[in-house]
């Protein structure tokens, strides 16, 4: 009951905050030219226009698809590296320094390199996204592997498992929380990076639409496309939280 009350209060707080922002926005729109701050009804119209037109929604799906493909490749690559470091102790000495170096490269530098190296637009976007996201997966999962308790390892070893059994019965379930965290971090990060990647040369995607809106001085368009991305992020986070609640149901509730 108390928990439910807290949730309602939290929602109420959110509504009030957003309400204030919307009122301030609407008020400002009456004093500032519409190309700077358009009124709320124009924004809503534009948002609905994007939402109901397949021609426009196609761009959202293209961006989402690019993000999902890049995250999947980054995850597989990152998981392979983390498992390699977890199983072959020496490999850590070789992989970790490179990983830290790669993590230090700004997203914009990857963009420049991608433009020079890849003539194909899709390859450019994929390269930028994978280069930015795979180190997060690798490090999160490697931390998860390192955090496996030696006690549990010894317990399972006492039953003489094969390497595959050790992986499936202990290592994989142990790093599920790390995998979920890495996905939660990377979905938001990849979406933001995808925008930057799509600004250079892409003719489809939300990033391209944002660039077009900027060129056309179309503020309602820019906000509508941004809102689309926020909706995508909220849906992804919600799905990941649902998955987390199911996969980590063995943990005592902190409430």
């Amino acid at each position, binding site marked *: 009951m108390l928990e439910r009350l807290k949730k309602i209060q939290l929602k109420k707080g959110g509504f009030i905050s957003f309400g204030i922002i919307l009122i301030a926005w609407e008020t400002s729109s009456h004093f500032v030219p519409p190309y700077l701050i358009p009124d709320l009804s124009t924004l809503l119209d534009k948002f609905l226009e994007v939402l109901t037109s397949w021609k426009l929604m196609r761009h959202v799906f293209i961006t989402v698809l690019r993000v999902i493909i890049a995250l999947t490749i980054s995850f597989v690559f990152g998981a392979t590296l983390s498992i390699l470091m977890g199983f072959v102790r020496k490999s850590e000495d070789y992989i970790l320094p490179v990983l830290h170096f790669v993590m230090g490269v700004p997203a914009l530098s990857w963009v420049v390199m991608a433009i020079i190296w890849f003539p194909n637009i899709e390859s450019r976007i994929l390269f930028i996204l994978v280069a930015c996201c795979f180190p997060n997966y690798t490090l999160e999962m490697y931390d998860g592997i390192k955090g496996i308790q030696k*006690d*549990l390892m*010894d*317990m*399972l*070893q*006492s*039953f*003489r*498992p*094969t390497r595959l*059994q050790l992986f499936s*019965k*202990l290592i994989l*379930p142990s790093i*599920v929380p790390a995998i979920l965290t890495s996905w939660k971090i990377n979905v938001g990060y990849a979406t933001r990076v995808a925008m930057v990647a799509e600004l250079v040369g892409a003719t489809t995607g939300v990033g391209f639409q944002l660039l077009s809106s900027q060129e056309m001085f179309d503020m309602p368009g820019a906000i509508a496309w941004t809102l689309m991305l926020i909706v995508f992020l909220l849906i992804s986070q919600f799905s990941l939280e649902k998955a987390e609640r199911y996969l980590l149901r*063995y*943990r*005592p509730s902190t409430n």
Partner: protein
Amino acid sequence: MEKKIIVVDNVKKIYKIGRKQDFVVADGLSFQVSKGEVVCIVGKTGCGKSTCFNMLLGIEPTTEGTIRIEGRDPYKDFNYFQTKIGAIFQTDRLLPWRSSLENAVIGLELVEKSKEAREEIALKWLHRLGLEGFEEVYPYQLSGGMRQRVGMARAFTVNPDILLADEAFGHLDQVTSNQLREIFLELIKETGKTCLVVTHDIREAIEIGNRIIVLGKPCRNLLDEKIPEFSSEKEKGEYEERIFSVIDRGEV
């Protein structure tokens, strides 16, 4: 002549600390265990009992000397001992994402027994250990004593020939510890398993074991003898005191 199942011969164990420093955990450890014997190993905290336990389990190698179980090296012939050696640890070491039943069956899962067969065996042991109705709950929902019971069920489920227990009741409150010790005694008598119990509790060693091995520091045997039958509590108390003084002085 009794068949010696476990033969530990002049074992030395050294851990490297840093580049130049060595830490000698065991030096000159030797003892033998016959089939069906229940041997208790006692010693001060930090004398290397658990290292000895890990070497017997085959998880750690010896630096010098040999350990032979059924004539084989448990470290080198690691896979040979699958389901032959069972272990009960100091803490329950349950996998938190598995229910009691799933934890109890893990040893059998590795030998690829059918799901029905392994669950039937695990359920039998869980029920025998008083966990009826708790098969589907996760470790965090169980008390410390119950978790240790699941740990015991997990060890018995694979039906090992040799059972190793490392301070299995040491971290529990006295009532729970006594209860579990009684159940454990019943089970090893019933199954006739060869058993090696590592403990720091002299009274526990006297109650459980046929033989007692007192370890000094670094891990070496100071005393290795049959535990006598006691006609009175006074006699038992005197024996306890004698063992205590051996442990305390580090010599016989």
